[in-house]
């Protein structure tokens, strides 16, 4: 059986690796096979961060071009940059609040209009779920719960192979107890927005 491929991208500091570990451990707890790839080091200083997960039978965590079942983007520009990983059957969940590259003023190419990014993502995927994850995170109690908003959003996508129940269990194992309430709220809100 082919694995379910998850490509996650965004910007250093958004909690992408933590989110991916929560997903992977939840899959493991469900008794599924899972492999994951993450990149550390230089990339974290405000650069692009991406992780790749395969749930099911796979040796390598690297997702071939166009073979991601879902693209989970914590930042809209990074969603578009990762679009080569999806096909017309793929789902995209993206945060709509941009994080500007620090050098954008000196950049030859401007940051695209959000509406343009969303249109592109919509036209290239089976379905686009766009949510203002920063706003939802703030409303849930802390901007840093952004990653759990996105995790909740991913969990709402049709065919997503990891159950909500296991994701929440895995959140408890991986997040500090004092922020768990906020994070669970953020997760539920992300889930709710993408379930509509």
């Amino acid at each position, binding site marked *: 059986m*082919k694995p379910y491929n998850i490509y996650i991208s965004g*910007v250093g500091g958004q909690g992408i690796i933590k989110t*991916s*570990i929560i997903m*992977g*451990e939840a899959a*493991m707890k469900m008794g599924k096979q*899972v*492999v*994951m*790839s*993450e*990149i*550390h*080091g*230089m*990339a974290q*200083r*405000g*650069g*692009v961060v991406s992780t790749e997960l395969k749930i099911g*039978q*796979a*040796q*390598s*965590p*690297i*997702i*071939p*071009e*166009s*073979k991601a079942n879902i693209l989970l983007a914590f930042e809209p*520009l*990074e969603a*578009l*940059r990762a*679009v*080569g990983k*999806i*096909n*017309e*059957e793929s789902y995209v969940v993206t945060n709509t609040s941009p994080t*500007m*590259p*620090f*050098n*954008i*003023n*000196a*950049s*030859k*190419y401007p*940051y*695209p209009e959000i509406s*343009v990014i969303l249109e*592109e993502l919509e036209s*290239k*995927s089976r379905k686009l779920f766009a949510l203002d994850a920063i706003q939802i995170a703030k409303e849930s109690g802390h*901007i840093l719960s952004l990653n759990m908003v996105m995790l909740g959003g991913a969990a709402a996508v049709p065919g997503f192979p990891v159950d909500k129940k296991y994701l929440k269990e895995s959140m408890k*194992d991986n997040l500090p107890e004092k922020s768990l309430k906020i994070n669970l709220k953020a997760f539920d809100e992300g889930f709710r927005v993408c379930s509509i």
Partner: protein
Amino acid sequence: MNMKEILTAQKGENLFLLGNEAAVRGALEAGISVASTYPGTPSSEIGDVLSRIAKDADIYFEFSTNEKVALEVSAAASASGLRSFTFMKHVGLNVASDSLMSVVYSGVNGGMIILSADDPSMFSSQNEQDNRYYARLANMPMLEPSNPQEVKDLMKYGFQLSEEFQIPILMRTTTRVSHMRGIVEVDSVNEEKRKGFFKKDPLRFVPVPEVARNMHQKLVDKIKKLELKADQSSLNKLFHKKGDLGVITSGSAFNYVMDVVEENDLPVNVLKITFSYPFPENTILEFIRDVDEILMVEEVDPVMEKDVMAIVGKYSLKKKVHGKLNGTLPLIYEFSPDIILEGINKVLGIKTNKKIKKSRKTELTLPKRPPTLCPGCPHRAVYYSVKKAISNLNLENVIFPTDIGCYTLGIEPPYEAGDYLLSMGSSVGTSCGFSKATQQNIISFIGDSTFFHAGIPPLINAVHNKDQFVLVILDNRTTAMTGGQPNPGLPVDGMGYEAPEISIERIVEAAGVKFIEIINPLNLKKSQRVIEQAIQYPGMAVVISKYPCMLIKNKGKKKNFIIEVKDDCNNCNNCLDELSCPAIYRADDYTIQIDPQLCRRCSVCIQICPEKAIGVKK
């Protein structure tokens, strides 16, 4: 998962581990007593985990001053009968290589594993050298895991093998193995504690020429026996049997091969080489006799490919060997499943099918997002002051030799303060050369950890040989780029115990430098003045910029004021153009704003604004 579970998990439990974490678990299951490293990505997390659990695990762990020292610490422990583990990034093994060559001659009593984390495609390195050559150069056994479970299992096996043959083992991972996460079923931790005792044996441990000649003969004999061992090893294993093409592969390349072969049901036979040196000649011979053609899939250099060609030649076999050398696969960078599929299809004469699900590409050209110095980073302030000092003195063509650390990011505009870099510590050594070769002014940058690692001998060289340059030591009180490990300049060691703090200033003084100034880089006026004096000083001048990395300073705490751009701003762009702090941005309405979430209140922008339009919000 809590990091402590790497120590506490019970036999039979499953953990979702990073390759680097699995290496720690394997070492604990093998019962190591001593571990040592100098941090370097992609191996850094091994040390981070060990540093967190060493006390509870009752083992000794240290962040050594450099990789050579780390290897020597472990070598002596193994000579004393303990199991030892030293690990480093690929280029770190270059630093350690002098002692590596000798420890293979003398051999070990307690098992010893040296792990080299290679970095194909250079995610965080200056080159993508293939350290499988080191196994051949030093003549030592090599193991190459493909996933975290194998990392853990091979650690245990490696220690047994090391003790059986009294030889250190080289374990080679790559970024995609070190930074791959997978499910690892753990075994029990070995709680038996050995007592180290060094039994003198100069004919074994002191390689003066006469002794070394004997030792080399013994080493060659060991390797002969190990060749047999590799040939009989179940680690070198046939995985897929179909058709007439034989694929020989190792490491993470094996993962790609298996995924594309199984998904596309390709008619190939796959031989995975895990015990890769001594190269298992008979295993290879048996495998290639049954196939028509051979495809070598390995990262990065065609190392096994040439070995296989030698076997084909030796036995006069009529077998075509495909791989990097005939252009079937790319010669450099890491592989991907797409590259492997194309390579196999090329050999099989199948057209790569790109139909059904077309890859989606955007027509837009997207702005890049390069990594940068963090908001509030003290290095940014130093670079700003250096630039100002140079312009105040009307200097041109100043050379900026730089070094390895976050501050290497100073090569980017607007700082552009990185002109020449070779390796750890090279900022100082190359400055000596520029000082002799040119009449240009030289301002050189090195971090605190890098200074301890390899900056001290070239500084002594500079003073003794009467070189003239300014060395700026960027002491941010940590080893920042690799994740914030302690170094000898801090009052804490790798175990987490209190430790004597080594003074950079006093080392510089003892080396004979006469001009030594310590600056607070966030005080721009004073910093500029000191740097100007240093540039004009006739002789070696050292400026120590001392301010903690913003990632460790007041972790989690924020100063309770906000810095804002006031109405006096006339949009001169000075802050954006000259400082390029990620917290300062131009808003949609074209006003300049400071993001209070990103701002670390370092106050450098307040000092540089010509209109005094940046200040504390009242």
